[in-house]
């Protein structure tokens, strides 16, 4: 009664969240709280949140803070941490169960657990904290990732829970999933931020095991179903920073009746995280995308009647 019926659902539906960040201002209308769901089926080499890719929790290790004090070694239930010759700790990731015990004892903040199993009620408790800011800015919650639609039940439950609290929800997705999963989440979302990685079939094969055509079908279906969509395009130097790509984006947007486009210039802010989770990063020395160039691209699109933001 009066909402109590949902308490059990909210407390039992759970998923893996790797971050909840307040005061996000680029991902949807107004002031947003971003909930990042862990796990992604794409493997874009430019990803700036590499910790989002694996669906499981994982330990990040910031080597420069480590003093080799050995506290993590002593607490680890898997005995998979040792202090190596350089006076730093090292984790045998093949045995690590990401329990987070080492994070708690590290006095220097050298260890951080990415990914916590949270239920809907716990997430909402945090999200609701900024409800006044949402009210004054038409903001709300943004589900982001990873790929949000890989945890469809959880994501949908989060949107339902937000709506019970009158909080609008934006959904960020790359759309590279089965339509059924996508729709299960997208159906209730108030706005959708659709990441269009590239517009070339052979390029898309480099980032995922899915045909670009299917992604575009999904995008089309969303528009047919009346969803409000912003297309977001990462702009990667020497990959898709071309007039041809821009033209394709404009064409897709025009065909599907989409008005808003965000251009996201490639940056290196995520570099240190690759090291922390010991994931190979092939764009380590890659130059950042020049902002001025992206602004020019944006102006091109603006002239054609689109609402464009850069870095949005």
């Amino acid at each position: 009664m009066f909402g109590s019926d949902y308490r059990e659902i909210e407390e039992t539906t759970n998923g893996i969240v790797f971050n909840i960040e307040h005061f996000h201002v680029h991902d949807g209308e107004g002031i947003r709280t971003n909930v990042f769901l862990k796990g992604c089926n794409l493997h874009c080499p430019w990803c700036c949140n590499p910790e989002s890719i694996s669906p499981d929790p994982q330990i990040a290790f910031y080597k420069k803070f480590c003093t080799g004090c050995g506290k993590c070694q002593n607490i680890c239930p898997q005995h998979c941490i040792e202090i190596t010759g350089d006076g730093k700790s090292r984790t045998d990731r093949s045995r690590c169960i990401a329990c987070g015990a080492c994070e708690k004892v590290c006095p220097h903040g050298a260890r951080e657990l990415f990914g916590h199993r949270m239920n809907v009620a716990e997430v909402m408790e945090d999200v609701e904290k900024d409800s006044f800011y949402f009210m004054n800015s038409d903001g709300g919650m943004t589900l982001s990732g990873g790929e949000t639609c890989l945890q469809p039940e959880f994501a949908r439950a989060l949107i339902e829970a937000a709506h019970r609290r009158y909080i609008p929800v934006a959904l960020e997705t790359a759309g590279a999933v089965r339509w059924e999963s996508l729709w299960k989440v997208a159906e209730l979302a108030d706005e959708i931020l659709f990441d269009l990685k590239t517009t070339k079939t052979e390029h898309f094969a480099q980032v995922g095991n899915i045909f670009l055509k299917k992604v575009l079908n999904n995008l089309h279906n969303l528009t047919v179903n009346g969803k409000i969509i912003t297309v977001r395009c990462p702009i990667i130097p020497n990959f898709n920073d071309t007039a041809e790509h821009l033209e394709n984006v404009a064409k897709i947007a025009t065909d599907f009746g989409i008005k808003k486009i965000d251009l996201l210039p490639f940056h290196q802010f995520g570099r240190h995280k690759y090291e922390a989770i010991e994931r190979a990063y092939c764009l380590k020395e890659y130059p950042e995308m020049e902002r001025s160039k992206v602004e020019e691209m944006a102006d091109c699109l603006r002239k054609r009647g689109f609402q464009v933001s850069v870095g949005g």
Partner: protein
Amino acid sequence: MKYCYEEGQKRTGHMFMGEEITRSARIETLRDTLLEAVPQISADRAMIVTEAYQRYNSETIYIKRAKTLAELLEKLPITILDGELIVGSVSDKLCCAHIFPEFGLDWLIEELDGNPVRPEKRPGDRYEIAEADENKLREIMDYWRNNNHEYRCKAVLPEETHLIREMGVTDSYWLMIGGEGHLTVNLKRVVKEGLGNYMKRAKERMENLDLSEPSEAEQKPFLESVLITCDAVIKYAGRYAALAEKQAEETENPVRRKELQHIADICRRVPAEPARDFHEALQSIWFINLCIQLENNGHSISLGRLDQNLFPYYKEDINSGVMRDEDALELLECLYLKLFQLHKITSWGNTKSFSGYQLFQNITIGGQDMNGKDATNELSYLILGAQAAIKLHTPSISLRYHDRISEKMMYAAMDVVRLGGGQPAIYSDEVYIPALVNRGIRWDDAVEYSIVGCVEAIVEGKQTGRPNGAGFINLQKIMELALYGGKDPNTDICLHPGKGSLADFASYEELYEAFKEQIRYYFKYQVITDNMIDMVTEKGIADPFVSCLVDDCIDRGKTMKEGGAVYDYCGPLYVGMANVGNTLAALKKLVYDERILTGVQVMHAIQTNYEDLTTVPSGPDIRKMLLDAPKYGNDDDYVDDIMVDYFRFICEETAKYKTTRSGRGPIGCIWQPSTSSVSSNVPCGECVGATPDGRKAGEALADTASPTHGTDTKGITASLKSVGKLPTVLVSGGQLVNVKVMPAMLDGMMTRKMVQVLRTYLGNYTG
């Protein structure tokens, strides 16, 4: 008059309200001249005062002070810089700090002897002094030895207060060497009526006194002093009229000649007569504030709601075509440069708490009218625009926010915020007005509040009580004393033994009560100190000129310190707010709720500055556990509730005490809290050892009501929400929170989101 010319305009590259800001050639030259000038110490004032004090030694204090001011205004050298439109400066030196020997000279002589450091060798806020001036000051030092305000204050204060200062719990030293300040006199009325009318009122009052009635007879010397000082101020303006005329004759520039002739006319008229236009009104205001600054050694002498008070003059000039907006802007910028030019030096110890050559001269804009309607007008934008153009730390522009304020004003304010420099400061009517009403101020007056000093809201022209501010109270030092059973680990002084130390407290309640008990004790001494200093000020300084400009001093025949003002409030400034909350929360969680650590362990850890590696857990481990405990500024109710509770206690404890004017006329006369720590959080931290919020010995305390540096990790929304939970409505002395954002946060669309954050914080959370 046309003052603004396009030739030689300098583009600044900064944008304000969609236009690029330019500085006229006049402003650019004046600004450069003042920026390049090194502040100098002058002995001129000190010498004149020394002579005058000897000459008028047998007069009453009112007459002695009045005649001293009159001599100063007659004898101090005056200048008009080329291009100046608003005239009046304290000296012929460009940036000059006068000396106020009657408040105490020993500190300066000590500093000149290199103890702790000579004024020109200070790490910051340096002053140069010419050998001749230094020699003069040394000549008069014997006359002032044991014959000054500081000495008289120290003589009457109880022994404990000296020990308390030595421990670093409270600091009111600058009250002893500084005079009346922290107020805005009734500038609106002076501009409208002219000082002539003030003299008339004083004369009438004097004529009607029944001298056979003792309570009336004692008013006579004050009223006489009003006549002396007002007359002297009018003559002082006359000196500028004469100088302007002389310069007009000498100049070969016909445009400047016309300006100087006009300035001469203005100075012959104001502040004696009512101002007739915008230029006269600004000049009148400046003469008044300048003379107050020369009368005594106070700071935070502010200008009030300039956009409201001067709007009629501005509007009439614009409507009649006498002046364009550009000219009004030029005049405002000239006024700002006069405010910037003013310097006062205080001891290096005090300067550390008030660093940055600050005299805290505030101009308030925005806010609402008596019916709650947005009061923002064209002049508000000009005042803000002048600040954007001048881009100096003085004056301080204070914007009064309320829920109905226009989005245009918020964006204009953000344009200035974007320039850096922390201007304008933003205040919320949604909390300040109820806070003032709660202290007994009438709604009509509360709505008219303006800002003085750092954050203090006062009813301009009607309210007094804070001499130069009031003492700092080092809350975290008091917390430390509670943890150590009342004994200061630094100095071994124990004034108020507690019932035990952290090693003994059996429950959180016992710890909390021990803290409250120390607070009660030291607050009381703070009140004793500041009230006794006020008593000495009343008898020994009197401040006749500044008093007569505050309602209803003339009608009551009393100075401010005797109870002449309509409203009167005093109050301390709290330092280390967040540290105390974090300390209580960390101890509650680890020692009393979860019992992971014992009080003995934490006690040992803080005594060894978290450096003992031999214990289990070791010092650094304990520090890490304490640092990981909930911290204020993250929208975490565990610690925020503790903050709110202890803060409410402190506010209520403060408001129990009365000022020395209680029962002598003014409404209020109570003590009220403020969280403006200025820069004292740094020196205040120096005397506090390691504390259980994870802070190491000697580290700076948290400033103002802001979260401790680096502990608010959940972003600006959470941080401001935490601050918004505090019972700010009880902090009628002024609440302050410092927010620093990356310039990118104010780019384009982001500005809108910052405004939305501010509206939520200032409006919904009444922060």
